[in-house]
């Protein structure tokens, strides 16, 4: 006689080993290793990407006659890569033999230190980026005409009463200073926002995991 699916189900689960629950060992361990490894990979890829971008930008900037900007950006990316490598080295020294909680906590401290440093750096970085762009367009190509001077001459012909500060029209000078100050003020926030775009999801997962583990430590 053909068995119904209901009886197959009931009889099948009568067997005593049919419902043995897997062990929950190592769950956090695995998750901790996964999260740190994922972050490490992303961080390394980002360093390589910045290095490649710096190397590509320099000849392109020269080709389009804004070499000063290219050089300034190259220096900037060099500084960023230098600090990123220092942080990467520190990340690599996190002891994998720690228990999951301590391992993640050490990693969390590392991320906080890295974000804190980058936030501070961003206060200088964004004004520097802006000044590099201004310098790039102002000074033009190496050894050639200076487009900034041509612009000032043109403006002086149009309006001879214009006030110059260090050879730059006063309103332009004030404008640049204002933007630099604004970028210095908001640079930290922009930097934080930039990091969140790249690492936000993984850092949120880290927070959740740590909250869980701390709750677990309180309960047991």
């Amino acid at each position, binding site marked *: 006689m053909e068995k119904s*699916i209901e009886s197959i189900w009931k*009889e099948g689960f009568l067997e005593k080993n*049919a*419902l043995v*629950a*897997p062990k929950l060992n190592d769950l956090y361990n695995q998750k901790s290793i996964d999260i740190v490894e994922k972050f490490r990979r992303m961080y390394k890829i980002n360093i390589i990407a910045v290095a490649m971008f710096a190397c590509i930008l320099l000849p392109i900037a020269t080709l389009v006659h804004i070499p000063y900007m290219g050089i300034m950006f190259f220096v900037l990316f060099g500084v960023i890569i230098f600090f990123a490598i220092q942080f990467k080295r520190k990340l690599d020294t996190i002891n994998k033999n720690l228990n999951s909680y301590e391992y993640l906590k050490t990693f969390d401290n590392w991320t906080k230190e890295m974000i804190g440093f980058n936030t501070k750096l961003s206060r200088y970085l964004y004004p520097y980026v802006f000044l590099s762009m201004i310098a790039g367009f102002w000074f033009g190509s190496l050894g050639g005409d200076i487009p900034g001077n041509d612009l000032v001459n043109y403006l002086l012909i149009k309006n001879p009463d214009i006030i110059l500060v260090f050879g730059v029209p006063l309103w332009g000078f004030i404008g640049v200073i204002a933007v630099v100050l604004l970028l210095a003020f908001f640079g930290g926030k922009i930097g934080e926002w930039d990091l969140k775009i790249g690492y936000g999801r993984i850092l949120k997962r880290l927070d959740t995991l740590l909250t*869980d583990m701390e709750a677990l430590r309180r309960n047991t």
Partner: protein
Amino acid sequence: MSSDFYTTSILPYAGIIIKICRAYTDSQEDFEDYYQEVCLQIWRSREQFRGESKWSTWIYRLSLNICLTLIKKKKNSRRHITSNYLPEEGTEDNSAFADESLNQLYDAIKQLSELDRAVILLYLEEKPYKEIGEIIGTTHNNIAVRITRIKERLKNLLDGKIN
């Protein structure tokens, strides 16, 4: 996860979780991952349980939702890999249980759509249609019609395999 919570609030219902996770996975490794993830999510969400339904019903709902999410995630990650080298779903682990008929029934269940799998698991656990409707989020009548159709499909799939 607190071992007290696991022993008192999850372990008595482990059977439910095992049955659901088995229906949505094709290998022992995936099954263990899904089981652990479900247990972890139950623990994480424990404060959201307001006692409006039975604890077991809540575990059903959560387990199904988590398995459906995991299966979706797995499908998405598979799309990024060249699919030519991946084994067909439902072919890796045909002997999770000692009972051969149960293994064949599970194989047949795995051929159903994800939602139909959830419905038939709840039906086989003798949940009333009303409760199945509440868990799945549809009407009692819809569930009744769906179950008839699923049983017919399963019968066809099993036809010739089980005497």
